[in-house]
Structures are given as C-alpha cells and as structure tokens.
C-alpha cells in the first residue's frame, strides 16, 4: 500500500549530492512530490527533505541505497504522524478583484493567509500550512482569478527524541574504534 513518506537526507555539503539522491528515486520510478534543500542544525551538514509516495518495503530499500552514497551521513523516512511539517505558498492576485466583496477578509480570517505585498495592481498572499490547506485556498482563489501561484517543498522537524548529533557521534566512534581491516583488499 502506498503511503506518504518524508525523507530527511543528511549529507556532507557536496556538489552533486542532490543528483545522486534523486537518481535513486528515478531508477525506481518513484515520483518526487516535493523537495527542499538547506543547511541543518549541525554545522557543515546539509539536509534534503523529499516527500514521496511509495510502499513501506520500497521506502526501506531506497533509504538503504541512499545511505550507501558515500557522502550521505544518515537518512530518515517518516510518515506524516512522526513529523511536524509545513509548506509555504505565495499567490499573486489582482488588487481590484480582491477588494470586491469579502474575498480578502476570507483569505485572511478563514484561510489564515497573510498579505505580504499590496500595490494598486496586485497583492501577494502568503499561506503557510499543510498541502491540503494550501490547495483549499488555491481552489478558493481560482474562482476569482490567480495571476501567479507557487508552493514550496516541505520542511519538516522530526518528533523523535534522538537527534542527528547523537547518530553522528555514534557513527564516529564506531568508525574510529575499529582498526582498519587488512583482510579486505589492500
């Protein structure tokens, strides 16, 4: 059964890493719903957040293939319940249309939108929330005409208590505690 997963890929900040991660998904014909890349709370560690829909078995396979990429530190796959997440959308609409009736009121009061720029010609509305709330606002505004619309990728914070830093420390000590194998090539 397909399910929505948020993949958090922590990696070294290396050119090309995004490519290495996405080819793993494209080879398996997994569509990327959204993708965001940024720095993480740990200095020098890069975070890519990817939303995909796939099966629990497949998500495990791709997570392990992503962790196999040399510059990847750790990959987490979370279902929506395990994370706090948000997306942001911007709408550009005509000011004239917005000022007729109660449209602006509804955008602000009912949909929790925020006006970030207002000019005599157009307004820019910002909406932060889950995808379905954003889509709801999109449908509402569509009826009145939208000049531009853009929605960001998901940003997510995990509910788990063990933080990346702890994993990094564990990985570090595991690597250092062992004398390099002489048995494997060389």
């Amino acid at each position, binding site marked *: 059964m397909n399910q929505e997963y948020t993949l958090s890929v922590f990696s*070294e900040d290396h050119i090309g890493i995004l490519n290495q991660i996405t080819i793993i998904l494209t080879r398996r014909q997994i569509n990327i719903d959204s993708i965001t890349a940024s720095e993480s709370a740990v200095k020098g560690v890069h975070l890519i957040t990817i939303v995909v829909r796939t099966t629990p078995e497949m998500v495990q396979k791709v997570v392990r293939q992503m962790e196999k990429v040399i510059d990847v530190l750790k990959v987490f796959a979370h279902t929506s319940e395990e994370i706090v997440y948000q997306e942001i959308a911007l709408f550009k609409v005509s000011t004239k249309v917005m000022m007729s009736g109660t449209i602006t009121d509804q955008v602000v009061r009912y949909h929790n939108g925020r006006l970030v720029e207002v000019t005599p010609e157009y307004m820019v509305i910002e909406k932060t929330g889950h995808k379905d709330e954003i889509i709801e606002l999109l449908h509402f505004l569509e009826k009145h005409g939208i000049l531009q619309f853009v929605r960001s990728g998901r940003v997510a914070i995990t509910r788990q208590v063990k933080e990346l830093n702890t994993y990094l420390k564990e990985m570090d000590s595991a690597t250092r505690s062992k004398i390099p194998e002489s048995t494997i090539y060389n």
Partner: protein
Amino acid sequence: MKENNNKNHNGNGQGEISGAEAVINILIAEGVDTIFGYPGGAIMPIYDNLMNVEDKITHVLTRHEQGAAHAAQGYAMVTGKPGVCLATSGPGATNLVTGIANAYLDSVPVVFITAQVVSTLIGTDAFQETDIIGVSMPVTKWNCQVKSADEIPEALSKAFYIATTGRPGPVLIDITKDAQIQKLNFIYSKCDYIRSYNPHIPLHMKEIESAAILINHASRPMIIAGHGVLISHAEEELLKFAEKTGIPVALTLLGLSAFPSSHRLYAGYLGMHGNYAPNVLTNQADLLIAIGMRFDDRVTGNLKKYAPDASVIHIDIDAAEINKNVRVDVAINNDAKEALYNLIPLVNQNSYEKWIREFRIYDKTEFDTVIKKDIKPESGEIKMGEVVKMISDLTKGDAVIVTDVGQNQMVTARYYRFSEPNTLVTSGGLGTMGFGLPASVGARLGSHKKNVITFLGDGGFQMTIQELGTIMQYNIGVKIVILNNSYLGMVRQWQDMFFSKRYASTEMVNPDFVAIAAAYRIPAKKVSERADLESSIKEMLATDGPYLLEVTVEKETNVMPMVQPGASVSEIKLTH
C-alpha cells in the same frame, strides 16, 4: 586523513611539485606498480611525469580506453589490489564508461583517473569536454572533480580508501589540466576515515546466534556463496563452516573458485545455465545460507517461486542488498570472513547424507542427459564443452581462466573445474561482450600462474580485437581460445528457443583469425578436427608467450540446462 583539513596544502598554486607529479607520487605511495591507460591532450602532464618513474610503475598502453578499464579490472580481480586506469578528457573518459559500469556491478576496486579541460573552460562545451562526473555518477561508488593541485592528495587518498574497503567498487577522479600543472606543497597520508562512510560495521552477535539456531535446526540446508567470499578472503572459513555443518555449497558465477569443485560438499554452479541439482533443490531446501551474494535475477529465476520452503540467512557487507530482492529471516550485515569466523563455533557438527544423495541423483541425471554429450561427444563437430573440459584436465585447474560473454562463458563456467580462489575473471553483472581479451591482459600481468587462458566467442573477440596490439607490444603471455561458432551464439540460442528459430542478425561472417594473429606476430593455430584438438591444446599450453587457438565448434547448439526467463529455478530444463 581527516576531511576538511587540506588547508595545510598551499592553495595559491605555488609550491614544490606539480599536481601531475603529486598524482604519480601518490600512486607509488599507494603501492601501485602497474597501470593501464591511453593518453591525450588533457592528461599529458601526468603522462610526462610517468616517464620519470618507469622503474617503479609499468604503464600498459592499450588500444582503446575500454580495454584499459577491463584490463585494470582483470588485474584487480587476480591480485586483490586496486586496478588503476588513466584516460584523457572527453572521448577518452566516455570510452571508459562500459568498463566502469562493469566494475561497479561486479564490485571490483578500480581507481579511474581522467583528465578534464582547464578549469576556466568547464561548462562551456570546450574542446573534448564532457561532464564525466555526471556521466559516471550512477556507475561509480564515488567520484570527484579536482580543480586545483592542492586538492589532489585528499581526493586520491579517499579514492583508494573508498574503492578498496567495504563492498569494493570503481571510483573516478577527474583532474583538470591546470590542476595537473599547478604547484603544491606535497604532503600525503593514506585515508583511513571518512565521517559519512563506515565500511567497518560492528558485528552483532545476536544475529550470529539467531543464524546458528536456524542452522542447527535445519534438515535440508544449502549454502549459496558468491563473490563476497572471494573479496573478503573467506574461502577457508567457508570450507570450515561447510565441513563442520556438512551443508552442501553452491556457487554463483562470480563465486566460482571460492570453494573447490572437487569437494564432496560442492553442489555446483547456480543460475540460468547452472547445474541441475542446486537449481532444483533450492526449491526443496528448508534453509538457504546466502554468503556474499546478492540474489541476482540470473540466480533466482522467478522471485515469486524462489525457495518457497526456505528460511533465509543473508550475510552481506552491503546493507542495501539485504531484503532487496529476497526477504530474509536473519540478516548479518557484515564482512563474510568475520561473520563466518564467529558463526563456526556456534554451529553443530552435522551431516546430511540423505539430502546430499538427492544432489547426486540430480547430478547423475544432468550428466547422462547433458554433460556426457557436451564433454565426450563421439562424433560430429567439436563442442565447446569438450574444449573447456580438456583444458581443465590438462591444466588440472592450475590456471587463471578469463571469459568473454555468451555461450563461451556459460560453458566455461560449467566445465572448468576451479580449485583455487580468484582463478576466474568474468563479466557477471553487466555481461559485457569484449571484456575477455583486455581483462586477460590485466590478469596475465597480475598473476604468477603459468597459464592465463581466455575463452572468447567469435563475436566478443571482435569487440575488442585491437587489444592483440597490446599483447604484441608487451609480449603478454595469454592463451587465447576462440570458440568459433560463426554466430552470436547465445542470442541465436534465444532465437531458437523463443523466437521460432528466426535468426535475425546473429550469423557472423568472420575473418581469418589465424591470419590476424599472424599480423600481430602472435603464434596461432586453427583446429576443426577432434583428432587434432588435444595436441593443439598441449602445444598452446607449452608455448611461452601469447598464443591464439581458434577452434571451430558446432554452430547451432544450445547451452543447457536452462532456467527460462520467467520460470522458477526448479523448472530448469535439461533439453528443449
């Protein structure tokens, strides 16, 4: 070497030695004494410096970059050391791609060094610029572009470390021409740590104990071992483990030579054209112990009908292989040698005489219906099987065997009796025609064995036939056996079996191979009569230096048994 600490190098392009010289110094520091490659504009500084160390590093100029890549892999497979391969930018680099992909699928450590156009020209579609980093990304374990000389030591030290540790594989370092010319203050230390990459996985005794319980309770267990056993040098542990538990051992194509084929517990070769007994009995086993193998589709046949009654223990160093194709009951994500070493004390001394007898019954059926006709035909044209069998008998397994791809490869895998580890060099995962001849160049240079023998099809030979020039130039003493059926035999077999015998573009009009060998001053002979076969093989084996033996074999014959596409391993057919 730690990451992010290369600031002790001089970044302003001033210093003692050039980037190119640093590359050479690093190769020497990494213990490299043989490399394969092909020069061109962008890599000339490195070649120029190679000339200064001719006493320390032998460079073999192949006739095509693909040949250099395969030769480096052949060298790595017999020596256990990383192969090293050089090529220039653009077409030089792209010509490597088949060889890189081949090494990737077969987990062979090869360090590819390509040159790149001057850093200021990158991205401009400059002359002989290709984005080889992008091109090689899906087929390398790791790759990296170097645009200034001071990055060379760190990049190359990581390259050798990554290629040779964990599950080995090819890596590629792309060095711009200006980085080769720039100066740096040279400091080099071997890499033994990368934060994001830990090849030394801690052993979990809990899994080992669970595995031992399954093993001690099994009544029809079978070991299926692959290339990982050879890579981790676990042959002795495998032998001890099998002898203590009494469990039969079947091998994958790349696992051949990991267990002596003369051993009473040897159950045969697995897969599409493997032996009858291990394929059929996979589906009667109650426990599969998979060691350093990856359940490739050529081994499992139809996955839905694979080993329905068996619990599965999977020992593999690559976590991504676990539960990838076959769901396993106990996963031991570790090096095969270490896992087996810890497992042996926990398993009971045992024997499975009744179970082993079942293998022998299937063996006899296979012998009577297939093998006898293949290796001891009374009449008719020469068969590939009898050539391989005769060479196996005459060398007593004491040779390195290289193959190309197709019927010649499958017949060699079936009838050569391997007795020592790392004595087979073949292209498994990618199935690359043209692999055999250049790989044998590397194998010959890497091996101390008296004989390195390569079995080639008439088709595959002509894909890299130009490497005869390399063999001539360096007097590389490989014995080349062309099993000439004047067909792309394996494809013709599929046309025969699955496309109503419509032989679309598989018949070959071939040149006079003996005359071609003569042009390269390589002694050669053609055999078409059974009566001349043995003496010709003996003559070949007794010849010092290279030799080419062309054997005219039966044109239209199929390699059997066969697990047909979509069929289960137990539905393996002996005849068709």
